């Protein structure tokens, strides 16, 4: 039982990171109907921003840690909006495939520019937050895990408030439902799309730092696997659906952790993806997704 709870906790904390990244995929898909493959590299840049910022704050303090995280979120928000402005906006109205290929290009560009600037050798991520281990019952809980879950929870609630309670959030949902109708009520879709990229990228940056704290070495290709998993999580929850992305992330992280802790640990990724295939066979639109019949 203790073993089970321990694994569950590990799984949820990994899943929370997937969820944070998955939200970016799903929000961008919502407004532009394409998968931003460069998103996983924004996650990587977030970790590196944390690495460099972390050297300028006192190590192991909560205030310092939060400052680093906030700084990285701002940097990545700007990066995400710049990518959208330079690479995707000129392709507005072009076939989705063109945008998709561009996204892969941007992804490779960020990865190899990262290698050029940061070097390909993995680096140790600094301890920006204080680290302790708390014993609860027989459970050993690291403060990092609690931090991951806490930060992810706060960010998701914040996102929910933005999307459902604010003017720009309602505009995001409107653009996602019908871009032309949104323009006809006076929404500047470019602003909303830019905002969406900023928001998603900021969440990815937070995810990058939380990931780096728990898996403490970072390198320019670190985004590839978590990015892929988060993408899968977004599909699993129903792409375009915000609560779905959070649910998909948590589910995938938990499954992966349990498989990793079992006799089949070598096949953890294979099993995680097999589960995806099975779920999609029965629910092709994802767990919370609904198929909308397209009217022609």
């Amino acid at each position, binding site marked *: 039982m203790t073993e089970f709870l321990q694994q569950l906790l590990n799984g949820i904390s990994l899943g929370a990171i997937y969820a944070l990244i998955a939200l970016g995929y799903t929000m961008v898909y919502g407004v532009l109907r394409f998968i931003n493959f460069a998103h996983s590299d924004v996650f990587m840049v977030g970790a590196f921003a944390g690495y460099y910022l972390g050297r300028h704050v006192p190590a192991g303090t909560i205030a310092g840690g939060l400052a680093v995280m906030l700084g990285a979120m701002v940097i990545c928000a700007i990066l995400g909006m710049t990518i959208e402005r330079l690479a995707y906006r000129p392709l507005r109205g072009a076939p989705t495939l063109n945008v998709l290929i561009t996204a892969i290009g941007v992804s490779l560009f960020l990865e190899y520019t990262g290698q050029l600037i940061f070097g390909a050798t993995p680096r140790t991520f600094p301890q920006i937050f204080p680290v302790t281990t708390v014993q609860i019952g027989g459970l050993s809980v690291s403060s990092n895990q609690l931090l991951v879950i806490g930060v992810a929870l706060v960010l998701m609630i914040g996102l929910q408030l933005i999307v459902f309670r604010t003017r720009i959030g*309602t505009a995001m949902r409107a653009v996602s439902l019908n871009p032309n*109708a949104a323009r*006809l009520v*006076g929404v500047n879709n470019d602003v909303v799309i830019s905002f969406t990229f900023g928001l998603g990228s900021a969440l990815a940056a937070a995810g990058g730092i939380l990931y780096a704290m728990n898996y403490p070495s970072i390198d320019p290709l670190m985004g590839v696997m978590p990015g892929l998993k988060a993408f899968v999580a977004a599909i699993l929850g129903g792409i375009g659906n915000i609560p779905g992305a959070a649910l998909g992330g948590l589910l995938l992280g938990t499954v992966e952790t349990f498989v990793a802790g079992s006799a089949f640990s070598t096949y953890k990724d294979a099993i995680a993806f097999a589960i995806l295939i099975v779920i999609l066979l029965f629910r092709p639109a994802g767990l919370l997704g609904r198929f909308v019949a397209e009217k022609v």
Partner: protein
Amino acid sequence: MLTVSDLHVSYGAINALSGVSFTIPQGAIVTLIGGNGAGKTTTLRTISGLLRPRSGSILFRGESITTLPAHTIVARGLCHVPEGRMVFANLSVDENLSMGAYLLRDRERIARNREFVFGVFPRLKERLRQTAGTLSGGEQQMLAIGRALMGDPTFLMLDEPSLGIAPRLIATIFEKIVEINRSQGITILLVEQNANLALEVSSQAYVLETGRVVMQGPSAELRDDPQLRATYLGGGPVT
């Protein structure tokens, strides 16, 4: 109020409009009728900025809006209720109305507009919390018009408000259109396939055929025109 001159619009190699011109005086209800593919919807989409014309000009209150992006055209008081209603299906009726007032900052004015919309369409008030996608066709049309009214328009373009609506609701909706025009002085450009109905409520009419204006005049005269009757009004003698 609105002057469209020699508008040419094409989708790739296909010409949708080949030199459409018309004028709409302030306070009037003017209708654009014509069959499928005549270019009625294209005309509206070009005026509201969803499409770019290849050539020609659109003057609204004396200023050119020909190349302005759609969201800035709405800001000038020209509002387009699109074909197929295009309500935000997953948003509540309330949120749809709020989106209609997206460009307004003055809360009091938004509240006043909301009351006005409820006055015109009491049904919307009853359905406030309901998701727009679950409304009936007629209710969605009311919502689409209500949403447009939320933004304080001085000029309203309605694309096929009778499309896909229960016959008994069509009369109501057209009554409301006339009411909005009379009580608020909102100028209306009405696109309709139901030519009988359109000619009944409008003062001026333009007939579009394959991207050209082929006939124009006071609605009452066009209603009696034998050629028009044969083509659009189901033939038959003048009644």
